[in-house]
């Protein structure tokens, strides 16, 4: 296995033991980018110019005997939704082309404090609206496991970069599954923390009450490592939680003896579960049982409305969040407008893609006078019912398990003409966002054709420790996470 395909914790152990250098790691990753990026198209912006020197700086510290943290100098990627000072931040949209922000997102600040060595900004669905990374204004990203397939979305660039060895790990954001579904499609670990665990300051907002940043990594150990860095209260984000952050790597141990794992009766009925996904799920549940877990069937009557609720609330918030892209202060402004209204209309017409426009219209409609109560208010009520379902469930179980996605990675263009079909692929990931719960997708096997499948685990608020412990135990009993795509 090449260095660029190894987990960060393992690489860190080896560089501390002087078996390898950080520079070698960087060269391995940079080599991958050189060889495969033109085909994978994981990045919108590459900042690779300083990556080797960043790695060498870490090596120099090692050579001087100074302490070096586990991610210091390790080449990482950021979804191009995180604000980076002086580095173009597009959010996958034409409307932000050329925008070089004057400040850093809180998570970027935190990563920098731990020695961030940034490879670049990864591709995403425009404004994170999508499940395939096809709605990016900068072209689609390919799935390293099958180049004719999507890497999932919206954090598809981050997932593809890590899967292809073009980054050791990456950050993504998850509003309805945008970390977990791409992780599932690329056989990676994707962890969406509890809403409020990670600061949203400097994460370009799609749907503010649902957005949450998190890591996409090769294994749960690396996810715990990055979660340690990015978690914690941020005074600049009023929705970030004042909760102590444990050392998540402490939970990389133990088994699942006596852990009650809920299986939602309504899941599998509601969505069209691909037969191969169903089979993999059975096998995964068998593994959990073998590790000592006790499966418990639970009922969540409100879960069948999750897709409908999500596709009202997220567009409502988005329609407001995206109002600021009006051509007045930043981004390209449409030429030839004769008055203010036309300036707005033309700028937004030219600057936004079809999916973004669709969601702005959906949200604008749902918030309009006369419709607000029927859509927004009702959706909020059902959201509360769903939270109640989860409260009841987590009184009985420690974890809820299920498939991350009802289907494996689909072909490019396959669902582009049918937005509803695309929306339905989020059915299993959306509930965690609506309820603000932490959830993780871990490698859960492959289809016969070799397409990755994910196992999703959800836990109660701020119980990422349980996710990490269970994922670790599952990894010990399986080797899905050790497989790498055969790039060619």
């Amino acid at each position, binding site marked *: 296995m090449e260095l660029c395909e190894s987990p960060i914790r393992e690489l860190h152990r080896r560089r501390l033991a002087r078996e390898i250098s950080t520079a070698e790691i960087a060269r391995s990753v940079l080599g991958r980018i050189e060889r495969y990026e033109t085909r994978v198209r994981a990045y919108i912006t590459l900042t690779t110019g300083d990556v080797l020197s960043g790695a060498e700086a870490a090596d120099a510290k090692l050579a001087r005997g100074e302490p070096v943290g586990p991610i210091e100098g390790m080449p990482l990627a950021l979804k191009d939704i995180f604000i980076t000072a002086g580095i173009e931040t597009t959010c996958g949209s034409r409307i932000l082309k050329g925008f070089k922000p004057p400040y850093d997102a809180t998570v970027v600040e935190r990563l920098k404090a731990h020695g961030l060595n940034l490879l670049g900004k990864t591709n995403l669905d425009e404004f994170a609206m999508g499940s395939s990374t096809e709605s990016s204004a900068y072209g689609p990203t390919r799935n390293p496991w099958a180049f004719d397939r999507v890497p999932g979305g919206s954090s598809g660039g981050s997932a593809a970069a890590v899967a292809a060895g073009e980054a050791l790990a990456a950050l993504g954001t998850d509003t309805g599954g945008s970390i977990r579904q791409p992780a599932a499609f690329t056989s990676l670990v994707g962890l969406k923390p509890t809403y409020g665990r990670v600061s949203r300051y*400097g994460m370009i907002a799609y749907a503010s009450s649902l957005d949450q940043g998190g890591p996409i990594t090769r294994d749960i150990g690396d996810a715990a490592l990055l979660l340690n860095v990015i978690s914690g209260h941020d005074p600049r984000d*009023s*929705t970030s939680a004042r909760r102590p952050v444990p050392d998540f790597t402490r939970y990389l141990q133990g088994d699942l003896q006596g852990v009650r794992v809920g299986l939602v009766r309504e899941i599998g009925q509601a969505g069209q579960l691909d037969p191969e996904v169903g089979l993999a799920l059975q096998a995964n549940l068998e593994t959990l049982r073998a590790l000592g877990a006790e499966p418990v069937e639970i009922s969540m009557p409100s879960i069948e409305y999750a897709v409908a609720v999500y596709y009202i609330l997220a567009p*409502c*918030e988005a*329609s407001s969040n995206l109002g600021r892209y009006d051509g007045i202060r930043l981004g390209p402004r449409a030429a030839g407008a004769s008055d203010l209204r036309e300036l707005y209309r033309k700028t937004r017409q030219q600057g936004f893609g079809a999916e973004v426009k669709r969601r702005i219209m959906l949200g604008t409609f749902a918030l309009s006078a006369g419709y607000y109560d029927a859509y927004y208010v009702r959706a909020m009520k059902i959201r509360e019912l769903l939270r109640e379902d989860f409260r009841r469930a987590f009184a009985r179980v420690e974890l809820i398990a299920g498939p991350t996605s009802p289907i494996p990675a689909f072909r490019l263009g396959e669902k582009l003409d049918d937005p509803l079909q695309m929306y339905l692929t989020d059915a299993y990931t959306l509930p965690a966002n609506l309820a603000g719960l932490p959830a993780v997708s871990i490698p859960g096997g492959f289809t016969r054709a070799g397409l990755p499948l994910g196992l999703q685990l959800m836990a109660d608020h701020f119980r990422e420790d349980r996710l990490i412990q269970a994922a670790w135990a599952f990894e010990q009993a399986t080797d899905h996470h050790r497989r790498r795509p055969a790039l060619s």
Partner: protein
Amino acid sequence: MEFEPVIGLEIHAQLATRSKLFCACPTEFGQAPNANTCPVCLGLPGVLPVVNRRAVELAIRLGLATHCTIRLDSQFARKNYFYPDLPKAYQISQYDRPLCERGWVEIAVAGEPRRIGITRIHLEEDAGKLVHEGRDPTASYVDLNRAGVPLVEIVSEPELRSPEEAKAYMEKMHALVTYLDVGRGDMEKGNLRADANISLRPRGSDRLGTRTETKNLNSFRFVQQALAYEIERQRAELLAGRPIVQETRLWDALGKTTYSMRSKEEAHDYRYFPEPDLAVLRLEPALIERIRAELPELPDAKAVRFQRDYGLSAYDAAVLVADRATAEFFDATVGHGADPKRAANWITVELAARCNEDRASIADLRFGPERLAEMIAMIGRGEISSRQAKTVFDHLYATGRAPAEIVREQGLSQLSDAAALEGLVAKVLAEHPGQVEQYRAGKTKVLGFFVGQIMKATGGQANPALLNDLLRRKLA
């Protein structure tokens, strides 16, 4: 047909905080364009608001002073619309869960007290402004210094019945805002401005007519004038059988008319919804009680005290308390030993007239209350006459120097020292034995001759009453 106006005011008052409502930028007035901005108030992608705690406390203070119920779970909401001075394309305001609800204030027009209901007081951020003077005369420039500055919007019930009541209500609100240090209330800088809603209905009817809203009235006079104009305009429309168009209007201060800005059809659908970037604003009852305990004496209570403790008339008390600085100046003048009625008189008549002429306020005065108290004490002791005091006051107002000094320099003091006068009297009598004889022979008119002589000798400063008294005694 006789019509009754139904008026409600929405008053926007800027809160006296050092920093903006959702970021740490200063609220300072008069900076270079966009000097007071940061990524948050510029509305850059990715930024989030953090509520200014001080702004919340100030709004609660105003809410308590207007007898409102303070919500323990109020919520911010987004008001969505596009305009270049609104960088996020939404204003963070409050909608269905405002901070303060269901209060009242008392106003008095022509001595008639009336209680006016307050529907709500909520917090919101101000917008920036467009500037039309720059390098390119055809261009509009955006200055976001004001964007994010904290405001309270105070919404009255439609219970005002005349332009005079509306003016009195706005004056009352201005007094409260300034008394409470909630805002600076500087009208010229737009610190306090009102939108006036008005409709007419046949007197006796309890149905509401179609209303218009006249926006951005930044003086008490404008509120009164704009409403008076609207009453006449609406009356004429109604009498001509034309329906009133529900619309937003603007006040033309030069032409003294209102004109249409946009009709209901063009009105925005603001698509309010709860601000997801801010949690519900949960308040502890203890905080509200602390703020209540710290409330200063309010105008109404002050007026009662002035009448009770100082024996002022209701009118004088009301005039004094209308402006916080004036009331405090009066209190301090009395505190320095001045006779309350004299002090009230000097402040409400002479001082008010001077300030009015100069468009100055108490804060701009060159002298403090102790000076006025000194002057009033000199009148009380008979050292200067009331007429002389006017001259002293003119100098005091102009220079701020001590009244005693002014009196000395201007040679104004009445000679009230009986011992000094006695000597003078003796001397003059000795010099004019003939006239003394005449007086004693019963020609008492000669007294005027002696007074004249002594006045000449003292430059007119002898206290006339004292002098007369002395002369009569010496001549007897």
